[in-house]
């Protein structure tokens, strides 16, 4: 960690586990669930959020002294919306199929609570470099959960990863399917995303007792 001081690396690595935006801060769940039926859209979504949050945090932090506090929400929304339009156009140009699949959920990055939350809580009070690290860190924490959920849902639901048949062919009964294994079609349906996230929270909190909520 020659590049980052101890304080700075804390900004990046804290949100990955003990201060994870999804499982601990309960932010940004909307988009996290709807697009995780497969691994590929989850990764694209994670990358988009890393870009938007990293850049947005820098922009807001550069402008923090000239934004009138009364209209800051609208200013923040405009900054995010501009960045999201860039992401949307890039996806439409280079990965059209994927952008169709993600449909409105790229647009919904605008109202992803993680982004507004980090703008309010961090970028408005810190310099650009630290804001950038904080943005990337939080987006990574968000992305990790997305990728874990996407991994399990695709593996158990369709027996594939990135579309490759990891467990053998389910039609021709090769690999695991020869032993009588069946895909769990339930994992592909939307409600299972909620339950998988619930299980991740369960595992995380039983490993780290300090995170358990008081009643």
């Amino acid at each position, binding site marked *: 960690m020659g590049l980052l001081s101890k304080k700075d690396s804390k900004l990046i690595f804290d949100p990955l586990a003990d201060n994870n935006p999804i499982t601990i801060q309960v932010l940004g769940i*909307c988009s996290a669930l709807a697009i995780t039926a497969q691994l590929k859209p989850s990764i694209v979504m994670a990358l988009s959020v890393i870009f938007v949050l990293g850049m947005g945090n820098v922009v807001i932090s550069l402008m923090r002294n000239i934004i009138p506090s009364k209209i800051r*929400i609208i200013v923040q929304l405009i900054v995010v919306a501009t960045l999201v339009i860039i992401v*949307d156009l890039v996806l439409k140009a280079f990965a059209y199929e994927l952008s169709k699949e993600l449909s409105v959920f790229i647009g919904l990055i605008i*109202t992803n609570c993680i982004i507004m939350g980090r703008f309010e809580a961090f970028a408005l009070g810190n310099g650009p470099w630290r804001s950038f690290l904080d943005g990337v860190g939080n987006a990574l924490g968000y992305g990790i959960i997305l990728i874990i959920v996407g991994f399990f849902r695709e593996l158990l639901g369709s027996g594939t990863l990135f579309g490759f048949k990891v467990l053998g062919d389910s039609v021709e009964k090769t690999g695991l399917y020869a032993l009588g294994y069946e895909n769990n079609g339930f994992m592909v*349906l*939307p409600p299972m995303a909620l*339950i998988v996230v619930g299980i991740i*929270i369960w595992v995380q*909190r039983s490993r780290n007792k300090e995170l358990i*909520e008081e009643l």
Partner: protein
Amino acid sequence: MEHLELFFKSIFVDNMVFAYFLGMCSYLAVSKKVSTAVGLGAAVIFVLTVTVPLNWLLDQYILQRGALVWLGAEYADYDLSFLSFILFIATIATMVQLVEIVVEKFSPSLYNSLGIFLPLIAVNCAILGGSLFMQSREIETLGLALNYGFSSGIGWFLAILAIAAIREKIRYSNVPAPLRGLGITFIITGLMAIGFMSFGGMLTGGDDANQEVEVVSVMPVNEMSNTEPSEEALQEIQTEVNETIE
């Protein structure tokens, strides 16, 4: 009929929370007590009913390809739809601000019950999601857009009311410690979503593919007898029958 179908479809089949997970952040954060949940739910219904038709007008007369034709024939080729995110969110943010000011002026009691939730709503995914779905589903008339906004709002309201009631009761149960609070809420929402999936069969003709099947089976009998199969088709059937007999 069209209105009634859209109404029930948006509440139950395409429920904002259970089918698309929109507005989950405030759904999880504000569902600890029924009374606050009702306040937020009502505010969501209100704002969705106002912003979806407004954004429909924006979409029809400014953003869509060829929408600017009312300015003059030379604008017919303009396509501004890439601006829709920024215009929709600006409309929502200003409307929320405006509604807040108007409600505060004319009905202080309503303001006291809704007031704290209104700023929260500008960044609620359900509101922007409503407008984006309205755009991507190409809703045809202003009336249908109004209906869509209102009924999706009711769907959201139902969802948050139900989870708040469950969370109030679950306080007395013995939930495993690591699952307490957030974890169990996620799992309950998942189970509720599975329940709501059963509404999927309530309305026929949801997808295009289904609709075509419907049309064929609904055809009146006397009309069906009028449509005589062509000779080629008859021959094909005969050869098939012969083959199976052989």
